[in-house]
């Protein structure tokens, strides 16, 4: 069976590599094991080992979740130029991008699972067997769209790679409609995640129509940042051909997205601070502190600074073209948006509480360890997937039919 050989050969490729590759896998595995052990501590003792409380009931886990869904959605920035605009250079790397989407969605789902109070009851979310409150609950939507996105981003590359593996041309009429679906689906995963937050009038910080657009803009700024860095690394550690035009297209998209994102931040600041009412308490807490509590203040200003520096670098053509400054800008933008869209989004929604109480949140070591473990798992997943994808794309992995070999 070709498919079984395909999987077998793919796994074999993942377990093949130079010393540096194994060192990298080992390092990631150690972090994953550590994170798993800390998760066992959390599972045995309950979420009391985290820093969350009734007052701030979502924390570091959901912050990472929101950020990673954005990264996952950003794969569409490679899919559209590759398949709609027939950019050959981008088409060459699109599967690496989809591998990143798979890793990012898996990480996002894992972050939700570790945040649950009763992960043993996960089956309750399965429709028919369990009870999924679709279409009313936004979380139900999120479960469906994320699962669907994961399947789409496994199915399309699977089909394309398997065709390549078997030495045949992939049937355009099969994969193109699914690719189109995945494009819209990518936008939907991040819009649904944004709606998850913005659907709550109880939380004025999130209850804005601008949250959906902000999510997309920041996703399209942070996603390409990661893709650029990753492709540069791929270029360095493998013989895979990554055209500079791919990098420059992504950099251009990232520039515009970052500009739009900063504009949205400015719009939020103006709207809330010009006539400051009770609804502005959360953004006041975030940027200026509230009632003597200001633990997030240095973080958000730091993030904003990083983003501004990044956008300035990107807006200056020579700097955007220069590999070093571009990479710096990518790192700055990635970290800046991770802070702003992660903790800078989730925590202020809970401060002050709907009854006006200010209660701060600090992630505990358990939360940080489990999160590191999940990130390591995602990177590990991406590494092995990319290894196999690159081997197939370069033609080094081919289906060897024993019969045809003998007959030759």
């Amino acid at each position, binding site marked *: 069976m070709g498919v079984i050989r395909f999987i077998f050969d793919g796994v074999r490729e993942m377990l093949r590599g130079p010393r540096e590759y194994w060192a990298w896998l080992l390092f990631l595995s150690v972090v994953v094991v550590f994170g798993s052990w800390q998760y066992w501590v959390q599972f045995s003792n309950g979420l009391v080992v985290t820093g969350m*409380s009734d007052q701030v009931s979502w924390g570091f886990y959901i912050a990472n979740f929101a950020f990673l869904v954005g990264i996952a959605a950003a794969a569409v920035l490679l899919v559209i130029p590759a398949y709609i605009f027939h950019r050959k250079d981008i088409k060459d790397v699109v599967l690496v991008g989809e591998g990143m989407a798979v890793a990012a969605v898996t990480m996002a789902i894992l972050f939700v699972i570790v945040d649950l109070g009763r992960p043993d009851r996960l089956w309750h979310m399965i429709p028919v067997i369990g009870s999924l409150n679709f279409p009313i609950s936004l979380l139900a939507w999120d479960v469906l769209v994320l699962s669907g996105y994961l399947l789409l981003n496994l199915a399309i590359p699977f089909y394309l790679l398997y065709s390549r593996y078997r030495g045949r041309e992939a049937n355009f009429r099969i994969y193109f409609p699914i690719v189109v679906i995945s494009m819209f689906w990518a936008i939907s995963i991040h819009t649904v995640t944004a709606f998850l937050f913005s659907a709550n009038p109880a939380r004025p910080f999130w209850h804005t129509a601008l949250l959906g657009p902000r999510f997309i803009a920041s996703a399209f700024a942070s996603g390409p940042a990661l893709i650029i860095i990753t492709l540069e690394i791929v270029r360095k550690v493998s013989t895979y051909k990554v055209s500079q035009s791919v990098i420059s297209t992504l950099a251009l998209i990232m520039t515009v997205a970052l500009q739009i994102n900063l504009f949205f931040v400015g719009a939020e600041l103006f709207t809330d601070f010009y006539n400051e009412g009770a609804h502005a308490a959360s953004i006041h807490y975030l940027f200026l502190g509230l*009632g003597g509590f200001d633990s997030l203040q240095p973080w958000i200003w730091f993030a904003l600074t990083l983003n501004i520096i990044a956008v300035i670098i990107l807006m200056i053509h020579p700097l955007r073209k220069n590999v070093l400054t571009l990479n710096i800008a990518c790192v700055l933008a990635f970290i800046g948006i991770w802070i702003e869209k992660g903790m800078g989004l989730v925590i202020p929604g809970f401060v002050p509480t709907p009854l006006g109480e200010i209660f*701060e949140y600090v992630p505990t070591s358990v939360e940080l360890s489990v999160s590191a473990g999940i990130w390591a798992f995602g990177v590990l997943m991406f590494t092995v997937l990319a290894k196999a994808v690159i081997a197939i794309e370069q033609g080094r992995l081919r289906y060897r039919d024993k019969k045809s070999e003998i007959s030759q």
Partner: protein
Amino acid sequence: MSPRWNATFSTTTRHSLEAGTTVEVPSWAAIARLLVSCLLISAIFSARADELPESPQDSRFEGYPNAPEIRVVPRKDDLFFYPCNQCHEAIQPNAEIRPLSAPHDSELTHGRGLIWCLSCHDVANRDNLRTLLNEQVDFDDAHLVCAGCHANRHKDWTFGVHGKRVDNWTGERTQFSCTHCHDPHKPAIAPRAPQPPPPVRTGLELTPGSEHVNEPAWARPEVNQE
């Protein structure tokens, strides 16, 4: 006859006389007067006993339209000195406004001087209270006395939105009487210590923030400056 008898039963007569004059009465008239007085006294007392309304239904109080049927938790068992006539049968009624002696509370803050003991307590029969119309009211129906001044509250209480209903939210309504919560002699409820503040989640601590100071506009100094 000694003018003291006259003084006891007809003080007004005595006051009408000029100071210094004495009243001469024939002895037969005095005896007759004495007898009549005794008869009258006993008649008044016995008549009072007959005239005591058995229940508030005899009261002139019309009630409120659509008022629900309520059962009032009796008070008499909780009253330490009740029945009051145990002592008061032997004590001369004295309607003069004055501080009382033990064992009664002599402190009466209710009304801040606008009322005094006999505004609510019946002067002749201490086992009853009295309304503004001088109707006799049993201690278990004290709310009828309160209603004379606190009509709005009484209406709220009758409909169950003031005071305390006991046992259930449906079915027979049993409510506490006014005096269950409000001491009619010193109605202000004294402040007491609250139960402890809410806890914070196990493993976390409450970090004190800055003191919230919310001054109303009239308290801010710049507003008060002329």
